[in-house]
């Protein structure tokens, strides 16, 4: 998709200056941009499309270490949905997704509003808030794992200060471990949400603010009920970015809990990798195919939104 758009954009520019014979020149000038986008297009088709097709095909086989074409129908899917670890993974990804996305939006918007107050050193704060995004999930996970470790982390530090009954070690209890991961997930992702929402806020017309002020609406209500609905696009972008990240969450699990205690923090992506590593490739492919479904759904939703926006724009233009 992106390459076509790029090619179109590259082709559109020189066409402006061209008169007589411009069409041919335009075509000639398209060639370099086509050539330069070919590698990316080939990778996109090769890596994404072909690999996805093979993933789906192999999910119907009993491939072990080496992929085979020994088809077994839906056996892998039956095994998948009968496996407690997968059931736990699916419910975990829902809980983790909903809670961390909600937290992300709330804190991201609060940070964006804070940044919108014409504070001093805005660049410095933006860098600080965006910094966690630059860290690898493994680093984020390890840092939080240390902070939540009952013997080294916050719990021990607070106890040493005198509050000897203080409890903060979510990762060692199966009921709370997932929420420990949510905290790390929000910390790691809130910067991006803030940046997107801040851009959205800045995109709201200043006239709207002036009008709200004249009407005597308090600032918090303006932010919540006027500005927020006007930046639907930014919110949707932030949510979709988060959602795709949630579905493939892997490094946080590996760094923080290894899926434990027991299987309490297993996630679908971990299941896929482990199945492949233990030479149950068919099983891993079935799980990967199941993971593809919600991603495809999210992308479809995004398409629908974009398509509707385009229709509306066309309607406005023809009016």
């Amino acid at each position, binding site marked *: 998709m992106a390459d076509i758009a790029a090619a179109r954009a590259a082709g559109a520019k020189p066409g402006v200056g061209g008169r007589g014979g411009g069409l041919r020149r335009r075509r000639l000038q398209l060639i370099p941009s086509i050539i330069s986008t070919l590698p990316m297009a080939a990778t996109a088709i090769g890596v994404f499309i072909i690999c996805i097709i093979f993933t789906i095909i192999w999910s119907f086989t009993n491939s072990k270490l080496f992929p085979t074409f020994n088809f077994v129908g839906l056996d892998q899917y039956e095994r998948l949905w009968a496996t407690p670890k997968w059931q736990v993974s699916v419910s975990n990804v829902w809980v983790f997704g909903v809670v961390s996305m909600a937290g992300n939006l709330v804190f991201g918007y609060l940070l964006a509003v804070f940044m919108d107050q014409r504070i001093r050193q805005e660049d410095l704060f933006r860098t600080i808030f965006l910094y966690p995004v630059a860290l690898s999930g493994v680093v984020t996970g390890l840092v939080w794992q240390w902070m939540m470790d009952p013997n080294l982390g916050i719990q021990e530090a607070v106890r040493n200060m005198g509050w000897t009954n203080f409890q903060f070690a979510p990762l*060692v209890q199966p009921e709370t471990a997932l929420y420990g991961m949510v905290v790390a997930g929000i910390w790691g992702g809130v910067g991006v949400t803030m940046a997107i929402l801040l851009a959205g806020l800045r995109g709201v017309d200043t006239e709207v603010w002036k009008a709200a002020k004249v009407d005597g609406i308090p600032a918090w209500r303006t932010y919540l009920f006027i500005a927020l609905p006007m930046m639907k696009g930014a919110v949707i972008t932030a949510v979709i970015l988060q959602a795709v990240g949630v579905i493939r969450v892997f490094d946080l699990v590996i760094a923080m809990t290894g899926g434990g205690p027991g299987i309490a923090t297993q996630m679908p992506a971990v299941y896929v990798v482990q199945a492949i*590593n233990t030479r149950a490739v068919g099983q891993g492919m079935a799980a990967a195919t199941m993971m593809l479904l919600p991603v495809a759904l999210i992308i479809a939703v995004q398409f629908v939104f974009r398509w509707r926006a385009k229709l509306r724009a066309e309607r406005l233009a023809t009016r």
Partner: protein
Amino acid sequence: MKKFLPVVATMAAAMLATTAVRAADVEVIHWWTSGGEQAAVTVFANEFDALGGDKWIDTAIALGETARAAVMQRALGGDPPEAAQFNPGRQYEELIAAGLLLDLTPLAEAEGWSDIVRPDTIESSCHIDGKWWCVPVNIHSWQWGWASIPAFEKVGLAVPKNMDEFIAAAPKLKEAGIIPFAVGGDGGGWQISGMAGVLQLNMLGVELRDKIFRDLDTAAAAGPEVTKVFETVRSLQQYSDDGSVGRNWNDTTNLVITDAAAFQIMGDWARGEFSVAGEQPGVDYECVAGPADKPYLNTGGDIFVFFKQNDPDVERAQLKLASMMINPRVQALFNNAKGSLPVRDDVDMSLADACMKKGLALLADPATVVADVGQYRTEDFNIQMNDLWTDFWFNPETTVEQAQARFVDLIANAD
């Protein structure tokens, strides 16, 4: 002068030979990363380098599952290491079937491996359909308990000889502020699964265990004996500590070494940790065979496979390494450092300590030597067992009935 010519000739021949043979690097992937394990693998590396010419390239990857996955990925990608560690059993059956491994049969026949390697359960994991595909380097048994003598002395109790005695002692240990039962939950729960497997073998006996795991008898898997195993594991859970989540095995063993914990069920590789820490068997710690009155010795262990490389120099170096690994002197040095038993019995074990002597005595009695479950079932199955046991251990909501139903399900679907 008369002697001079032949000397020159042999020298020239030797020089020619050395120039014609190119020294090769032999990359070895293994998962020996703890202190005792490193001491053992260093024996291999040093002995191999001392042979001259070729070089041991060490690629240590922590955690067996991860290391094996890396080997498989590289084999699939067409860039396999020269040698790689596996556990005896079915972990490498696809590699043999795909023709990726170097056939060691000529070397094995020349050195008479079939006559020297024992017991049969170890030999049969490398000697498959008349061909040798790997070199067994040691015998490791899971069937051991490790007790801290000072911890039991502190509460005035004798070191237990079986699980009943331990469970009777556990409340007193807990009262005294000692972790009664040390276990770790890292790597998807392999420690918990292994510990449960030890109890399983002790409580079911080898016939019933083989009926379930080898013959896949679901009625036996659903039987009351298995229920009792689940109940025992459940009752042990209250005696472990909060820090067990995600703890690796050697940190867990270290709790027993430092007397913070009283008892751990772990394979005999734990002995290497005790000896690296300078502990003496019978004084600082005790190795409890079984832990049961009638102990078994299950023959897990380690083997090395050698990948085909299509380079005669590399192949020569690989065969040299294979031959070295099974050499009696290297076997003695390596197994002493590792805490495992040698795969041949003509090895000088004068260095063996009290624990290893116990193991050697068990190994000499064919009635106690049994195969490892890993020799019957695939790694895929074993990982699912790990999931089952680790969930059962850490999740109090999983009942004995649910866990056993899942177990029967796994047995029914095993291949």
